[in-house]
């Protein structure tokens, strides 16, 4: 990256290409991956960039191996990542759960495709359940849901930093539309912007003879008795909660006088903002709220919105996966009306949202 992104550069490219560049900019050294649409081009661009920047790539036998080799590379002290989608995200739950338990800062890009099963290779927002609370665990992940190529670039860099700072696995949640469409973004060298990149550190293979110069690293994820696990789980949860207040992000507009708030995440939030603007131009008092971190979820921010306006329209390309997070965040908070536009695996336009709200009268 030393030469290629030294100065800010306006580019026009696919989201997958933006992710590959961002990983280079973030100082990632290794990618291990398995082909699945719509994330393939992340590997394609990485494998083209890799030799120029002294980076490594391994095409594994499946997503389990992609996840576990990535974990190995992280344990060795390298910033490493993978990318996947759909059934691949299902397989990734196993390595992710190990990363949660052992606090391994692996980074994973998920470009959502249709589900369940093989479904479509194109688009959905149906992997929210999996990226937030998949696996046999408690959801100790960081999940950024992006809505534009600029955000794919920005949050890929941020995901590496937050993963290594807090030692939790981090996921950049995009989708097939963001992966495949082209739009413009500004690429930059984060350090030129004063972003101090968190440096990786080896978990194993540090200098010195174990047992003499230093204690050996004995890393485990299995415990003998319930109380041992309880102590470990509670300590991880405390650190996760502590992190949450520092990394939670949400976006909101026009809440102050809003009589209806549109809630959406990811690429759908662009339709929500466009709809809001069109309705505002017609004199309708509509606001918008978008969680950027789906884990940890911006509960307090949403609760503050609800205190000001408690009529909601939730819009997502899934059958209520964002809605589940929304309802949990507003448990015991009075909500007057809650309406939904659920379109599993299908894109949602501003026009549809405008039409829906206008029909409410």
């Amino acid at each position, binding site marked *: 990256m030393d030469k290629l992104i030294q100065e800010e550069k306006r580019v026009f490219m696919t989201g997958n290409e933006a992710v590959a560049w961002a990983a280079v900019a973030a100082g990632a*050294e*290794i990618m*291990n991956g398995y082909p699945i649409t719509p994330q393939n081009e992340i590997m394609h661009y990485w494998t083209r960039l890799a030799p120029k920047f002294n980076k*490594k790539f*391994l095409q*594994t*036998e*499946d997503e*389990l*191996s992609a996840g*576990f*080799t*990535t*974990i*190995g*590379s*992280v*344990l*060795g*002290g*390298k910033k*490493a990542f993978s990318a996947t989608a759909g059934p691949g995200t299902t397989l990734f739950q*196993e*390595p992710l759960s*190990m990363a949660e338990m052992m606090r391994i800062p692996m980074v994973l890009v998920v470009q959502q495709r249709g589900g369940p099963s093989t479904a479509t290779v194109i688009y959905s927002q149906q992997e929210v359940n999996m990226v937030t609370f998949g696996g046999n665990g408690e959801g100790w992940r960081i999940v950024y849901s992006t809505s534009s190529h600029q955000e794919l670039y920005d949050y890929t860099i941020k995901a590496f930093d937050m993963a290594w700072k807090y030692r939790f696995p981090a996921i950049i949640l995009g989708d097939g539309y963001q992966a495949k469409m082209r739009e413009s973004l500004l690429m930059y060298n984060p350090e030129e912007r004063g972003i101090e990149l968190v440096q990786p550190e*080896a*978990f*194993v*293979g*540090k200098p*010195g*003879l*174990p*047992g*003499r110069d230093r204690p*050996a*690293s*004995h*890393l*485990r*994820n*299995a415990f003998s008795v319930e109380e041992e696990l309880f102590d470990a789980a509670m300590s991880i949860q405390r650190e996760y909660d502590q992190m949450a207040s520092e990394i939670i992000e949400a976006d909101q507009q026009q809440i102050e006088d809003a009589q209806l708030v549109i809630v959406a995440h990811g690429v759908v939030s662009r339709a929500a903002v466009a709809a809001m603007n069109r309705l505002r131009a017609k004199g309708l008092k509509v606001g918008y709220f978008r969680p950027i971190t789906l884990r940890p979820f911006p509960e307090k921010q949403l609760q503050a919105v609800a205190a000001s306006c408690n009529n909601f329209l939730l819009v997502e390309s899934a059958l209520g996966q964002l809605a589940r997070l929304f309802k949990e965040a507003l448990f015991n908070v009075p909500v007057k009306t809650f309406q939904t536009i659920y379109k599993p695996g299908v894109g949602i336009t501003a026009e549809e949202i405008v039409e829906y709200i206008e029909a409410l009268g």
Partner: protein
Amino acid sequence: MVERLAMPKSWRLESKPHKFCPGCGHGMVLKVLGEVIDELAIQEKLIFGVDIGCSLLAWDFFDVDTVQTHHGRTNPVMVGIKRARPELLCIAYMGDGGAYAIGSQHLVNAAFRNEKIMAIVVNNCNYGMTGGQMSPTTLPGQKTETSPYGRDPKETGSPTQGPEMVAAIASPGAYVARGSVTNLKQLKRFMKKAVENQLAGNGFSFLEVISCCPTNWRTNAKQTWAFMEEEMASYFRVGELLTAEKDEENS
């Protein structure tokens, strides 16, 4: 100074006595490995990966950096470490279930790619940790909790020939052997050659060890020994399948 008796220097005193059942083969395999670690002076650069199953009990066995992984996933974790840090020495330690059933895809592909790691498979013909179920290497007719009337090869296939499978797909530079805890001198020789093969960066190193599980076999010492020497030996041939010397002969 604590009396170390015959313990290898790389063993971690604080975790002894170890956690394996009385009569288990793991202790013997790990003693041989400990001696090899000492003799080749690799304690500082060795990363030991342990699978889930009885092998997980070795997570704090050595004064060696150790990573406990998931069932079947030790090979890819070691591959990831080795590729990130080629100067380190990576050994994946697992049982026959982890290697030949749930992790077989990883084993086969690590061998195909000639990954510069070493895999040790402790073969005791059953899933020990979970209570003695049938495993890929359970012998025909052998009774286990999930083959209570004896394994029927017509229904469940024949015992996996791990080293033979790996040898059939491995590339030049690979080392493949099968040893036994009934012959520790020979086992140590194989173990050393397998480690040296990785040290030399030649290729994938694979060692299966015929071992025992008297707890689940429900055997006494004599019966245990006989099962390994007679029953297991008739299916699993001890010896070296691929070595650097054999590579030369073939070239």
